[in-house]
């Protein structure tokens, strides 16, 4: 399936023969391979296809234990998921709200710094202003709209200047206006901290806007195809970010649908 076979040393992201089952029988991922030189990849696929699980394995949230069956190799920037977590240099934005409800916006953004034992909170204020929430800094999360809460999550994630950024459907449930505005904020933040980004989404346009290497996770629990996008990032500031990518969008969409249909027939 892989079209590129460069030397591993130049690979930012490597997943090799990854197999995972929550309990030894039902496989969520099977012999999954994924290699990329890009610094922003996206994994797309049908809902319930194991995308989130893959992201959790790559970020070290899911580890091998006695109940599950996990083997294979994952390496990002030369580090294993466990090493990544140990270096405390990863950021993760979850699909569900993960703001701390009893902390104000500012305290939420300061939290990762405080947990790291830092005393200088200037960067918290800096990132708050960067996402345009400085004036709302003393509000509680519940007083903010969904889009604003996602902004706080962005600020809180970038405040530690992560080297690797995991995004699990971060903008789900937001309208087009908020999505576009958050894409722009994300790109500005990435420009400043340049993390390796791994995005999981079922929104193909989102993947095409934010990533330059797109992997399609099929129902057979491995990557069925990948596409490298040559147009450099960020694209969201262009007048029409999807210019020239419309065909690709249609293609990926058809691929996902036909893949799920073949599976239906096999059953």
């Amino acid at each position, binding site marked *: 399936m892989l079209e590129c076979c460069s030397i591993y040393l130049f690979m930012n992201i490597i997943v090799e023969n990854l197999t995972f089952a929550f309990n030894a029988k039902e496989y969520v991922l099977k012999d999954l391979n994924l290699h990329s030189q890009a610094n922003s990849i996206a994994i797309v696929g049908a809902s319930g296809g194991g995308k989130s699980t893959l992201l959790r394995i790559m*970020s070290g949230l899911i580890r091998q234990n006695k109940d599950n069956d996990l083997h294979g190799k994952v390496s990002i920037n030369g580090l294993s998921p466990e090493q990544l977590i140990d270096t405390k240099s990863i950021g993760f934005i*979850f*699909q569900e709200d993960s703001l701390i409800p*009893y902390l104000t916006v500012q305290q939420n953004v300061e939290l990762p710094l405080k947990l790291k034992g830092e005393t200088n909170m200037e960067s918290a204020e800096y990132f708050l202003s960067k996402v345009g929430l400085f004036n709302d800094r003393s509000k509680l999360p519940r007083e903010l709209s969904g889009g604003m809460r996602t902004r706080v999550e962005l600020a809180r994630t970038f405040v530690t200047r992560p080297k690797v950024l995991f995004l699990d459907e971060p903008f789900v449930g937001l309208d087009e206006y908020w999505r576009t505005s958050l894409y722009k904020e994300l790109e500005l933040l990435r420009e400043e901290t340049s993390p390796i980004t791994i995005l999981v989404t079922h929104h193909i346009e989102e993947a095409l806007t934010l990533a330059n290497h797109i992997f399609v996770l099929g129902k057979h629990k491995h990557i069925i195809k990948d596409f490298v996008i040559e147009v450099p990032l960020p694209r969201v500031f262009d007048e029409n970010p999807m210019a020239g990518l419309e065909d690709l969008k249609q293609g990926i969409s058809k691929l996902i649908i036909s893949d799920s249909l073949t599976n239906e027939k096999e059953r």
Partner: protein
Amino acid sequence: MKKKGNIILLVVLAGLLLLIWEFAARGTDAELFISFPSKIVAFLVKNISFLLQSTAVTLVESLIGLIIATLFSFALMVLCFYFPKLMDIVLPLSVTSQVIPLITLAPLFALIFDIGLTAKIMMAALLCFFPIFINFANGVNLIPKSITELMQIYNISTTQKIIKFYFPLSLPSIMQGLKVSSTLAVIGAIMAEFCGAKIGLGKNLYLATKRLNPELIMSSIVLSAVLGGLLYVLVVLIENKLGYWYKQNKQ
């Protein structure tokens, strides 16, 4: 406006019931057992200092019991955070322990600790422990998966998790448990006083049944209700202070 109307309705209804009681019981056999409101009030006023003294004793017993139970369940939870396997033992044990009607232990405590305050405090604490502990454990389970995973991403120590996340995030559940326990504390203390005490509302109730003194029974019941309410309000006040972030009325 609607709330105010409800309160007025409630007061009128209560007043009506008291009036019926007053005139139905007065001069009949029922007077011997349940007395009637004006007589009870007169008794209450006459013996106010003694009655308040008994109430104060019961209050101290139940309050200390409640505090001990709270601290004990917090300590146990902290232990379970450090040693998660412990929870697999403690949880089923504390749940099955609830099939014992705990108040049956009151005579035993009276026997062991004699008629001092200890037996009452222990009894109150014993009744209070379970609701606080089980609600706390439940509250920890209710922490959203995304926040649990965030703690993993931050790669922080158990101590940090406990202080920054587990305790504050389970506050709504802890408070729920404390509200239940605040009334149980009074029940525990009074139950223990039944089994032997120098002074207290339970002691009053016990004596009054032996001496057929319905005024003492009724005024003690009223005062224990006030006591239960007092402890409940105390918990609510603490919750209003700490729970500003989930209490809706604040907005």
